[in-house]
């Protein structure tokens, strides 16, 4: 059973529906006991980092997520869920979970500092990923497969060996990060057609060593 963590951060049903479509049992929940007993955790979300962190703390889910990570069970972050795994976000200067060292940066700031003009923000739509290393959760993808993104901020781990893939939006930004039993995508696998479903399928049978 996969527990999809419910912390009032946007529409979680799309992740659930995609999992059911590939015959993976799942439950959307904020019940800490259920999260503890789940084999795997998906930590999704859309919205702003600050309000998401407030909800997590109010529901006691911040510790539940840290414990899940420590327990060694597979954890998948998606979009805002990916950003919140880092230490802090430029979005509302929010302090985040700090599971992976690093911060969440704004496209607007990096574009301004590099004098890049005319790019739309959010980065919304389909884009490719360049895998930096083989990873079982991202096996079986075709080279030109694209994934659906919608975000104005991106994750930047301090340790670049935790960057699993990058994506080009004039700047090259980390689009998949992870370490040990965590993988986290900035894009939405549940909205990325067959390549996205492949990732969810891989995750549902992933045994991190």
């Amino acid at each position, binding site marked *: 059973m996969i527990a999809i963590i419910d912390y009032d951060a946007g*529409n979680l049903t799309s992740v659930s529906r995609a999992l059911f479509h590939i015959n993976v049992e799942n439950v959307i929940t904020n019940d800490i006991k259920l999260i503890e007993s789940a084999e795997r955790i998906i930590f999704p979300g859309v919205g702003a980092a600050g309000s998401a962190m407030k909800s997590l703390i109010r529901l006691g889910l911040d510790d539940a997520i840290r414990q899940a990570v420590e327990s060694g069970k597979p954890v998948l972050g998606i979009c805002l869920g990916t950003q919140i795994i880092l230490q802090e976000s430029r979005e509302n200067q929010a302090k985040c979970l700090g599971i992976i060292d690093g911060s969440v940066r704004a496209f607007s700031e990096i574009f301004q500092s590099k004098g890049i003009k005319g790019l739309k923000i959010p980065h919304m739509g389909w884009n490719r990923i360049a895998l930096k290393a083989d990873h079982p959760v991202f096996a079986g993808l075709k080279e030109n*497969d694209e994934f659906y993104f*919608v975000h104005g901020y991106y994750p930047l781990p301090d340790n670049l060996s935790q960057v699993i893939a990058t994506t080009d939006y004039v700047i090259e930004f980390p689009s998949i990060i992870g370490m040990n039993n965590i993988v986290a995508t900035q894009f939405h696998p549940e909205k990325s057609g067959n*390549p996205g479903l492949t990732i969810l399928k891989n995750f549902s049978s992933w045994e991190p060593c």
Partner: protein
Amino acid sequence: MLSKRIIPCLDVREGRTTKGIKFENNVDIGDPVEMALMYYEAGADEIVFYDITASHEKRDIMIDVVRKVAETIFIPFSVGGGIRTIEDMRDVLLAGAEKVSVNSAAVRNPEIISHGAAAFGSQCIVLGMDVKHVGKSEKIPSGYEIVINGGRKYMGMDALAWALKGQALGAGEICLNSIDADGTKDGYELILTELISSRVDIPVIASGGAGQPVHLRDVLTQGKADAALIASMVHYGTYTIPKIKTYLDDQGVKIRSTW
């Protein structure tokens, strides 16, 4: 880099896809869930559903369609038409739509954009704009005016000013429909699209006028659109999405080529 998106648009009336010219003479052209699946498998990057059911009491039929579509396709889709309140938005989003689009309701009550963005996030609020060319004047400096009711009612609002206001209020995307080009199959309104897309920071979907693949190329390059809406050119089998994408790829437009 981001791919330019190709987005089929389905007009849905009481649970069936219809096609009429300028909201009249609607003809049943199929089941929206089946059509969504067909376009998903053919490589559509997103799908737009426009609910043209006349009666607000029959909205549940559309919600049921949205739920079935969400169980069937795994790409983003948006729902517009008849969205008047935050509750209407919530119903559509909870049923599984990625985005909701507001058009005349936002013209009448711009706060629906900011309230919707605060409640659900900017990324799911699309501002739909119906626009007519009227010539430049003091009141309409861009020469393009906002209209509602399928183009029958002029609102005295400048299209560019409204686009910028919509963005400031929290819209995450603009779906820009030229009433002049709509249904002509002579091509998108390139000047209007370029005017709006180059001035806003949020993505712009061009709508109205698509008849041939070259029209998509032009609006995605000259028109600076981020996405192109298509309807009749694919609904009747004149073109397929893979054929359009192959053409665009040959023309140097970055598109999503595998799915």
